């Protein structure tokens, strides 16, 4: 077992434990903080797969910004007792197990039937630079449309939030 395997086992273990923490925490804010930890764990797995840019996006957007959004959303709709905010529904747990099992089955099928070899052989030297060239070249319209999409998101969010205030 090389040191890379050890790093993977540790980070994957942290990710799985954090995900279990998301589900089992009674306090939903603790769930949100566990979610941040699992986002960071997924980011380290991206780094180990040589997908550095994706890992960076995962840390900046998911662990950095989305988690702040989730935590503020929780604080915004806070109920009476925070320690009872993420309770397990006894009735739904049976259906939940079935759906989770079915989903795991589907994901397992797709993992087993995927051929991974070619992807690793054609690994890019500098994906960030390739992304830059494509964004500023062939996909420049999509790049500007992304800006407009973000603008629409900001304006729409403000209108909705102001209406709620």
């Amino acid at each position, binding site marked *: 077992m090389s040191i890379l395997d050890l790093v993977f086992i540790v980070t994957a273990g942290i990710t799985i434990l954090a995900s279990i923490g998301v589900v089992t925490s009674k306090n939903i804010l603790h769930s949100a903080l566990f979610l941040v930890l699992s986002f960071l764990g997924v980011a380290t797995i991206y780094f180990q797969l040589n997908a550095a840019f994706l890992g960076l996006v995962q840390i900046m957007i998911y662990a950095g910004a989305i988690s*702040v959004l989730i935590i503020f959303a929780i604080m915004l709709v806070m109920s009476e007792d925070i320690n009872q905010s993420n309770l397990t529904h006894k009735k739904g747990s049976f259906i939940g197990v079935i759906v989770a099992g079915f989903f795991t089955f589907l994901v397992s099928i797709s993992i087993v039937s995927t051929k991974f070899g070619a992807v690793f052989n054609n690994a890019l030297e500098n994906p*960030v630079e390739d992304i*830059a060239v494509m964004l500023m070249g062939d996909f420049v319209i999509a790049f500007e449309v992304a800006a407009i999409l973000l*603008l629409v998101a*900001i*304006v729409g969010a403000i209108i909705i939030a102001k209406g709620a205030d």
Partner: protein
Amino acid sequence: MLTDYATIGLFMLLAVLFPLAALGLAWAVRPKPQDTPGKLTPYECGVDTIGPTWIRFKVNYFLYALVFLAFSIETIFLYPWAVKFNSLGLFAFVEMLIFITILVVGLWYAWKEGALEWY
């Protein structure tokens, strides 16, 4: 390529070990009297807390978070452009200016609607 991350790994290891060592050393040398109710209250600038501490937040905080999210995504687009800036040329620079201008309209709107006001 992966060995480049050894520095970050070492840094993370230090970041975990340093506070643990500091807290552990403090725990080892300090006196350990029984807990009193006063010792277990949350620290709030030395003043006793009034009412429940788990309160609802105003919608304004959510608005900051939303604007922050949008500009965080903008940073993701800026990063590859900045890495490749020298060889991309003037066209890419103008493209990025247009991109930022479109987003500044969003910032201006948020500002105009009072989403950035702290009250």
